[in-house]
């Protein structure tokens, strides 16, 4: 015990007598660890935020869009470049097993006017099931009913941002008349804000698709189907997602009279698939950010080695004295090695706090969402100790091998 306190006091005195140098030595490690923590927290935060957004879309959601899927060779249509899906397709899909709800969606950008307020918003023609499929609920008023959908009632449900723009000062929009392009609709409800960033429902309004077909010109396919922009549906159980995708693919290929060799003229994506792709992309990005930050940690480590070498040189005489007093090679070696790792450990701890503070500031003032996770903190501190041991090894070994007589003679 006594031996240990003595050992640490030896090292402590060595460090505090060179305060400025010790500080400069660990500065590289501090910056390295802080940047690892900050960048990883930004990566992890973004990942979590995107996953939350996707979850808010509903994890059992499948979206079908017109256009060719990825294929090889030949001419390929872009996403949404062709109009191949119809409301009749949607009705057919609704008959498939494990499909709980289906809604065709048509979108159009229209000018909305209420009194002296106006805005341009995306108007989505949907059916009554759309809200359930996309986890949308009303904050006030009601959603339109299936009856209203069937009859093509002139009603609208507003996204929360649209509602506050058109009805400022907390005016109640429910029951109010609103001009939508050339038509008048009545507001029946305002949606709960979702805050999601994927074509957020907050900035859109929703009317029955039938109403939209009456007020906005509707394209017809050669077979006479009502063209729709996209179809969204939900699956009873997420484990059935792939089966449903296969079933829908077969159904649509048959309905669109595609030959076996032809590419599909639609594209099916499940939210799970999107989530997996995005998580992977962000994971790669986070790793890249971490790797860049790790380089600065490495540079910090080389700085530690540099200073330790200088320190050994400067303290040659001290090493000689210690050896004359009976210090063995491993006493000298462990003294310098512990000194280096204590320095980098301290740098790691300070770096964690700095990184934490920076990521907090980033999340407060910046657009990034940040998340400091325990594994990153432990990793950063562990790596900083390892850097001390790794980069302190050579200087310590150098020190331990000094010849005591020559060391004593040095100035």
């Amino acid at each position: 015990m006594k031996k240990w306190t003595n050992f640490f006091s030896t090292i402590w005195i060595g460090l505090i007598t060179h305060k400025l140098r010790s500080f400069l030595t660990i500065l590289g490690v501090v910056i390295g660890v802080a940047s690892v923590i900050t960048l990883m927290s930004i990566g992890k935060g973004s990942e979590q935020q995107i996953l939350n957004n996707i979850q808010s879309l509903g994890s059992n959601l499948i979206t079908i869009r017109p256009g060719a899927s990825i294929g090889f060779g030949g001419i390929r249509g872009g996403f949404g470049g062709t109009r191949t899906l119809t409301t009749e397709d949607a009705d057919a899909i609704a008959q498939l097993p494990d499909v709980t709800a289906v809604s065709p969606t048509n979108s159009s950008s229209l000018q909305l006017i209420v009194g002296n307020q106006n805005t341009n918003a995306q108007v989505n023609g949907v059916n009554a099931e759309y809200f359930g499929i996309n986890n949308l609920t009303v904050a006030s008023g009601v959603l339109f009913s299936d009856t209203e959908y069937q009859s093509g009632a002139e009603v609208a449900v507003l996204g929360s941002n649209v509602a506050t723009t058109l009805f400022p000062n907390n005016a109640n929009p429910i029951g109010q008349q609103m001009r939508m392009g050339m038509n008048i609709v009545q507001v029946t409800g305002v949606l709960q804000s979702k805050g999601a960033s994927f074509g957020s429902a907050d900035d859109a309004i929703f009317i029955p698709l039938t109403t939209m077909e009456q007020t906005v010109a509707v394209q017809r396919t050669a077979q006479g189907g009502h063209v729709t922009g996209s179809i969204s549906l939900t699956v009873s159980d997420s484990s059935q997602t792939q089966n449903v995708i296969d079933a829908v693919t077969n159904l649509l290929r048959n309905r669109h009279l595609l030959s076996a060799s032809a590419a599909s003229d639609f594209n099916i994506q499940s939210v799970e698939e999107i989530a997996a792709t995005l998580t992977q992309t962000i994971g790669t990005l986070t790793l890249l950010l971490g790797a860049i930050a790790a380089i600065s940690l490495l540079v910090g480590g080389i700085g530690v080695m540099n200073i330790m070498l200088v320190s050994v040189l400067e303290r040659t005489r001290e090493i000689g004295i210690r050896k004359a007093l009976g210090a063995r090679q491993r006493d000298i070696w462990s003294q310098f090695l512990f000194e280096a790792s204590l320095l980098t450990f301290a740098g790691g701890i300070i770096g964690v706090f700095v990184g934490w503070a920076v990521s907090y500031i980033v999340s407060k003032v910046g657009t990034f969402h940040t998340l400091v996770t325990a594994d990153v903190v432990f990793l950063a501190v562990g790596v900083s100790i390892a850097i001390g041991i790794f980069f302190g090894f050579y200087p310590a070994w150098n020190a331990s091998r000094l010849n005591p007589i020559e060391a004593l003679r040095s100035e």
Partner: protein
Amino acid sequence: MIKFENITKVYPMGKRELTVLKGINIDIKKGELVAIMGPSGSGKSTLLNLMGCLDKPTSGSYLLDDREVSHLSDGELANIRGKEIGFIFQTFNLLSRLTALANVELGMTYAGGVDRKKAIEALTKVGLSERIHHRPIELSGGEQQRVAIARAIVKNPSLFLADEPTGQLDSHSGEEVISILTSLHAEHGITLVLVTHDINIAKHCQRIIQLKDGEILREETL
């Protein structure tokens, strides 16, 4: 205590070799007070370094306390330095950032463990009980050398080796240091080998060994 038999020391100097000691035979008994004298380059310091196990002889046998030490490993030699030998240097060799007390404690660090009470006792013995918390820079040369003596005696070694202990001191401080060393010899019967230029200091010893060109020129017992 010390038995040198035909000890030689050769340093490689590039292509040539420099023979510093050419077959030295010395026998020093326990409790003896011996001075080694000789001109610069006669091999005094090398001889003392060999006695202190800071270096290994090129050939010959060195019995320290009847134990052959000329072929021991670095670690074993370090152990002997720590426990058996107390060094006193011309340039004191104190650590400037440590207090007098911490410097004395440093002498015990590698010799079994620090005992603050013993360290204070040792500083009291050399007349520095009032200055234990001073750093070397705040002490006079004589005081610094007394701290170094305290650092050596605190671990109670069987052999003291002093390399020109008064070389950097004025005559008054030099006499003080020598009187401390001789009184340690008188009271505790320590074995002390000291290298000096100064015949007045050598006269305090029981035996003077004269070196020249790596050989013993003559020995005289006082």
